[in-house]
């Protein structure tokens, strides 16, 4: 479920669960953790399946997984 922010715009969660933080379409944090989260972005807490479903529903993107492979390997032995 999405944690609603307080009047100052901060959302908090201190449970042990899968936690998803995103801003726009960009994933900021996604992990199972016992650590608290305080965020001014959107905080979603649930099971891994629930988080995965939220990621799919909103087409959230982990930018660190993007690439620019041109398909050529110019480093192999000729």
């Amino acid at each position, binding site marked *: 479920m999405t944690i609603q922010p307080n009047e100052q715009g901060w959302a908090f969660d201190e449970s042990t669960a899968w936690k998803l933080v995103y801003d726009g379409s960009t994933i*900021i944090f996604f992990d199972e953790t016992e650590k608290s989260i305080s965020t001014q972005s959107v905080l979603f807490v649930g099971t891994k399946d629930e988080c995965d479903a939220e990621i799919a529903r909103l087409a959230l993107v982990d930018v660190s997984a993007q690439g*620019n492979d041109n398909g050529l390997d*110019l480093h192999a032995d000729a």
Partner: protein
Amino acid sequence: MNLNDSSAAKVGANIVSFIASATAAFRQFTIYSATTFSTVISGAFGIVKNGPGTLTLTATNTYTGGTIVNAGTLQIGNGTNITASVGTVTLSGGNLAYNYSAFVNSNGAITLARDATITKLGTLQQNLQVGTLNGGGKTLNVNVAGTTALYFNQTFGTALGLVNILTGAVGVDGARGIPLRDAVITVATGAQFRTYTSPTINNAITLNGGAGPNATGALWNESVVAAHTPIYTGTITLATGTNSSVGNSTSGFTITGKITGAGSFTKVGTGILSTFSTLTVANDYTGSTTISAGTLRVLKPFAATTPTASFTATTLSVSFSVAPTAGMTFRFFQGTTTNTYASVTLVGAPGRTGTYNSANSTLTIA
């Protein structure tokens, strides 16, 4: 051609392209204007290149005595062939150029007896992947045309003293030899030092600004494999008054050496760049920090906790090893941060909020 010492000596330099002479051990060419040899040179002797003109060899030569370049430039290939070869090259006052018509893992058996320049012509990547590079403490200037790199992948022999990347991109591959190690590297404005796979780069490197070829960075990890992470352990100096980009895509990129100088730093590319400041080796560059793309991850110890800050262009998340208390401030850069962060996420700071001040690059906990 009949190589004859006595006749060669009588010929004026201004009316010939080259003068040749022969001994049992070497065939000497004194080149005054650009000359191309396309026939195969073979035999149990070496070649000596003298004179200011460029000598271009385009054949698959098989002579076995090596090549000495005393002056001018010896060019291998003329842009229309891929098999030109010269064997082992010693640069004793002259320079070397490569101009192949296709990507080639080419001959890299090179010894610098004096400071020299190596040039890659043409637009295609070349890998110097055969033989040993003996730097002998000398200075190597490198000019690379186009946006593709000249990779130095030879076996390490002796270290170069200084490598000046003047134009274009120079690369090393962690899966090959890293013959540029131990040398001081200077990357000119707009030029680039790039890596492939996961080399350890121990060089002290000075960056003089710019985003390099293709705007991928003055330092760039070309790999697209996530596990490929070059580790830069030497000091990186950002030259005064410059702004240098550093980039990667899906691969990793780690800098454990100190980042220093009065220049500025820009993260480009979609990947994660990790920098480490320890209590004894703290990054202290004083220019601004900009995150144009991807993530800049900064690990810095403060008192009892070591926050790891992940800066993207619009968001900042900070993970604490020990929960911070209200009023604590954490400074991640000495200069300003160009980005402003309306969205801050704190991990491991129960009940706390934070405000980032871009003017002094500090996070204050409330």
